């Protein structure tokens, strides 16, 4: 029979072993879990950047049946897709036509009629147009011998279609009243109308708020127009010739194309247009204003290998969708590159709104969802110079918040350059200060002084950078003007005054500086430096007004550069100091003592032994400091003007990757191109600092190996 005590013991043993196993399990599981959590970070940055490298793809989501109509227009009215189609009634000989509007609702598969107008059978009196997110309806009618052009704003609400009249004008082109095709375009208050008559196209331009000022122009019968009211331009197509007519200058210039133009589309900003040529080529033309003259140039050829039937643009997302007979092309509007093509159902019209695409054929309308819209970005759009719309040449531009119709510009170069510029400036200030202080603290300073210096400087490391930024903005930046001279003089005169001091010391004492072990020496130099600083700064502030012209070349951007350099330099100096000091201090004693024993002075030992040994460590400290400066956000955000400029000029403003994230990420819409580009920039920051750290780590391990080899 077992002893109850023994039994008890056994039970305790079992529970102990159980607890041991349980703890091991818990720790293994949660430890691995925590480490996985950190990998999730990398994974997430990566997966959010990945869509940029993929391509967009349209997938069908819905289908509507259209009644027996001849579709004329497809567009959005108050965010819901609407089809305008012609309904023909054949009662007897008389053909009667009506124009009907159908909404395509996501709840129904049948298009629902909401409005009907009586209409002409050959060419409609009605023309719809979406402009700047608004829908407009234009009518062109003969009424009592006057040709009236009227525009209404249309919206949809629960009551149905609401029309608000905007303006009407009597075109009175008169004698020739048989109108063929017509269309119109507008930009803010300016409206252009093109109207086909027997003699050829008649063109009008007017300001909708003013009754007078109707301008006219007529074309030959073989010429066709494209309207660009924004710049008061007309593009005229005639076989292989394109003419650019400027209304204010009444001048026309010609260029040629490879093949006759089939069709043309104006981009929403009305500063560029897309041409589809008969040979299947497509080209993008863009204009810029040069001394009042608009120069149009072909900026890109898009080799879609098939004529374009319809084209739609989502400029803020850089996306253009071209419809061909059997396929769909996605083009990047910034670089005008063909990104990807996919097969597509036959259709005649497209409608693009955000990531929703609607295609229209004669009997059906289909809704498509554009998967992975961020895939529209290309390597060129992110990293190369791009000739953006309205610019005089290719350039690196970051401009995410653009006006309606403008192309968002996502070149990462300005940000990368900004980050590197700021970091280099900071290094320029921090390295001399930090390394020199580290040499003093680790090599010259007596132990007693070192115990004060080291924690003293390292407290700076724990100061939130937002405070350094705050002081830099509110104090340093405004007073910099008064102390600029002082700063330059201080940098110049301090070494000189130190030279004088050492001469005096060597006169009076036989021992060089650095032999003192009591800390008095450092105190003296500390006070000396302080006095020199106060003297120079107060004196210079007094003389400043008389020499202000000396610094006339320093504009505000240059001053803010100086402030960035100082603030960021001071922020990263303590970490460089800490690591460099550690490296210098850890140089094996035996080496130093051997050097002294051979008769070397402290300076010689420093130069020949300590610095050489610790060099990898110091380099590692500088590398890490550089990494910190690249990642630093608050100081750069607060001190600089945050203008993204791709310019290595150190006296120009900058915006860094990190500051850009802080400014723009809260505003970016999830899933947009902008959002993913921002994630890519975060990934870049991550990879860069990770790489920098790895380099620093490698250098440190080399240093350690060197020390242990002794």
């Amino acid at each position, binding site marked *: 029979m077992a002893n109850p005590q023994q039994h008890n013991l056994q039970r305790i043993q079992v529970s102990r072993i159980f607890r*041991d196993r*349980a703890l091991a399990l*818990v*720790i*293994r599981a*949660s*430890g*691995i879990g*925590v*480490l996985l*959590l*950190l990998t999730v970070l990398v994974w997430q*940055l990566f997966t*959010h950047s990945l869509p940029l490298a993929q391509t967009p793809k349209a997938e069908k989501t819905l289908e509507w049946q259209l009644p027996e109509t001849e579709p004329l227009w497809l567009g959005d009215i108050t965010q819901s897709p609407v089809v305008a189609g012609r309904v023909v009634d054949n009662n007897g000989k008389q053909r009667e036509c009506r124009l009907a509007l159908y909404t395509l609702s996501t709840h129904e598969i049948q298009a629902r009629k909401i409005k009907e107008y009586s209409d002409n059978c050959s060419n409609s009196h009605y023309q719809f147009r979406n402009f700047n997110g608004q829908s407009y309806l234009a009518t062109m009618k003969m009424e009592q011998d006057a040709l009236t052009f009227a525009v209404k704003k249309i919206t949809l609400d629960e009551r149905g279609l609401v029309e608000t009249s905007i303006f009407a004008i009597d075109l009175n082109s008169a004698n020739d009243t048989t109108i063929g095709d017509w269309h119109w375009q507008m930009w803010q208050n300016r409206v252009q109308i093109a109207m086909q008559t027997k003699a050829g196209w008649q063109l009008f331009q007017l300001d909708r708020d003013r009754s007078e000022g109707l301008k006219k122009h007529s074309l030959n019968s073989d010429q066709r127009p494209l309207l660009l009211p924004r710049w008061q331009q007309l593009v005229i197509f005639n076989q292989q010739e394109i003419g650019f007519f400027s209304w204010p200058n009444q001048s026309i210039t010609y260029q040629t194309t490879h093949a006759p133009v089939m069709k043309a589309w104006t981009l929403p900003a009305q500063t560029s247009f897309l041409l589809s040529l008969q040979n299947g080529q497509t080209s993008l033309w863009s204009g810029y204003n040069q001394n009042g003259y608009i120069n149009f140039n072909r900026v890109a050829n898009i080799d879609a290998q098939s004529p374009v039937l319809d084209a739609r643009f989502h400029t803020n997302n850089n996306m253009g969708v071209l419809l061909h007979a059997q396929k769909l092309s996605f083009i990047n509007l910034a670089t005008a590159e063909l990104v990807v093509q996919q097969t597509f159902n036959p259709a005649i019209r497209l409608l693009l709104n955000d990531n929703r695409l609607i295609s229209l054929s004669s009997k059906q309308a289909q809704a498509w969802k554009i998967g992975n819209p961020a895939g529209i970005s290309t390597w060129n759009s992110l990293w190369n110079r791009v000739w953006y719309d309205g610019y005089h040449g290719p350039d690196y531009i970051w401009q995410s918040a653009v006006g309606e119709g403008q192309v968002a510009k996502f070149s990462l170069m300005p940000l990368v350059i900004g980050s590197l510029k700021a970091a280099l400036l900071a290094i320029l200030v921090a390295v*001399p*200060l*930090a390394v*020199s202080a580290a*040499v*003093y603290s680790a090599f*010259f300073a007596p132990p007693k002084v070192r115990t004060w*210096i080291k924690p*003293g400087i390292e*407290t700076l490391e*724990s*100061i*939130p950078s937002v*405070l350094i930024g705050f*002081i830099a*903005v*509110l104090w340093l930046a405004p007073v910099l003007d008064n102390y600029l001279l002082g700063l330059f003089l201080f940098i110049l005169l301090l*070494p000189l005054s*130190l030279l004088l001091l*050492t001469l005096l*010391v060597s006169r009076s004492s036989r*021992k*060089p500086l*650095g032999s003192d072990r009591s800390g008095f020496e*450092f105190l003296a*130099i*500390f006070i000396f*430096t302080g006095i020199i600083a106060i003297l120079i700064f107060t004196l210079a502030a007094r003389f400043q007004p008389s020499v202000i012209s000396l610094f006339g070349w320093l504009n505000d951007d240059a001053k803010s550069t100086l402030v960035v350099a100082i603030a960021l330099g001071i922020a990263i100096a303590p970490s460089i100091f800490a690591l460099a000091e550690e490296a210098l201090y850890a140089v094996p004693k035996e080496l130093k003592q051997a050097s002294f024993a051979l008769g070397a*002075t402290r*300076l010689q030992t*420093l130069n020949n032994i300590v610095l050489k040994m610790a060099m990898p460590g110091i380099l590692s400290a500088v590398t*890490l400091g550089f990494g910190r400066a690249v*990642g*630093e*956000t608050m100081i750069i955000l607060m001190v600089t003007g945050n203008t993204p400029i791709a310019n290595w000029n150190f006296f120009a403003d900058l915006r860094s990757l*990190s500051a850009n994230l*802080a400014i723009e*990420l809260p505003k970016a819409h999830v899933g947009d191109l902008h959002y993913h580009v921002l994630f890519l920039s*975060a990934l870049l*920051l*991550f990879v860069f*600092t*990770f790489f920098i*750290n*790895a380099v620093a*780590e490698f250098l440190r391990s080399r240093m350690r190996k060197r020390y242990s080899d002794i």
Partner: protein
Amino acid sequence: MIFNRIPFRQRRQSLVVAFTAATTAAILLIILTFFSYIFINGIGFFWPSNINQINYQLQDQAIQTVYVQGKIKQNSPLNITGHSEPAQNKNIVLQPRHIIERGQPDELAEVLLYSGRKRLARVVGFEGAKDQQLTKDPKELLATYTALKYTTEQLSRRLEQVLLQELAEVQKALATLALPTTAKDAVQKLALMRQYRQLNAAVGETRRELAGYQILLDPGDRQTVSVPINDVAQLSFPNSLGWSGKVWHWMKNVGRFIADDPQRTNSRGGVFPALFGTVLMVLIMTILVTPLGVVAAIYLHEYAPVNRFTSIVRSSVNNLASVPSIVYGVFGLGLLVYHLGTSVDELFFSDRLPTPTFGAPGLFWAALTMAILTLPVVIVAAEEGLRQVPDSLRKASFALGATRAETIWHTTLPIASPGIMTGVILAIARGAGEVAPIILVGAVKFAPALPIDGDFPFVHFERQFMHLGVLVYDGAFHGSHLDQNNGFMFAVCLLLLMLVLVLNMLAVVTRTKLRRRYAL
């Protein structure tokens, strides 16, 4: 020959030593200037400085008076800028020759308004007081003011009671009876309407009564301005205060700064929500990060197999500690807020959609983001602590029959505790001062609703919160060098600086204490 060279060599060494020492001194001087600048400006903000009365005469104009607070340098031009008085809102530069007379009369008052504005003026009298005061004695003026202030406070409390409770109840009842269906309802509605009219009349009456209490101020040479006493936050006569009075006043100001709610402009009032938000966020972060970090460190050091993979993981964790903080903010917004938060909303708060609950930046996500940011710091420090436990101790513990769990719990962890605590406190200090990630994931410049209040469930993890660092960041954009509001920002800076420094010092003290306790 050689004797000639030695002094030269010595001189060169002296120069190098002097130069390196001077740069060290320069860094220390910069730090000193930095601290003292924040300290002096931050502390000085609360100090009730004397008010100067300056009579001046510009060319061919009548003698004018201006009140200026603070020390005035003799014989140097005086900038009169940015006074909150509408009529004085001009920039004049007074040369010494313009100034005819200056003085510091006792009866000059500093009047702080609830709107955040400050007026410097002579108190002429009060409306609504029993006897019209003609005294100039600050003590009597203050006594009258206090009595009137008490009355107006009673009145405004009553007003609030009526407006927020009684009137609101009647309105609610009226809203439910908007379309009376029965005769009884109609009667009830009529009664309610009558009650509503009565209450409204009472409100008007109280408002009129409140408006009857005014303080009459003379802000310079112009007519008397009357300010409703109900708008006055504080009336003081700094010139009449003695040293002890000023210290007392200063302490009151500091207390108010820490405990009060902010004013609209974020340039006056208190910073309690920001301080509270910072501390609460850091607290939640600490609760999250400590167990995670320690467990990961124990795993890495005690359980993980000793191989190449583990060492790669270790150095990766080390590298993560110096990844820019904004990257963690991006991670927090992208994964935690947008992905995780949206999923949480769909699961638990679907009734509130599309208004996001956890799918928007908030306190919990900020704390979690900061926890992930500081996780590498804690892991590295804790592992460093574990590494310092000699292997012999572990072996001795095993030899005594202890299991691994017991060894860790009773031997390894206590000895490693200084390292662990240092890591945790360093993480806290970093968490308190880091601003870049939390402006992405939940901190805002103005959110007077505290994350903890009396409404169920009492702690609102999803709420946005205020943070001292964000306040400073925001202040830098809206302040300007000459603005007198800067004093407030400097006070915020000082508070944040003290918070971080105290936490850092705590790290040092804890480390030494624990080290002494578990000294080997």
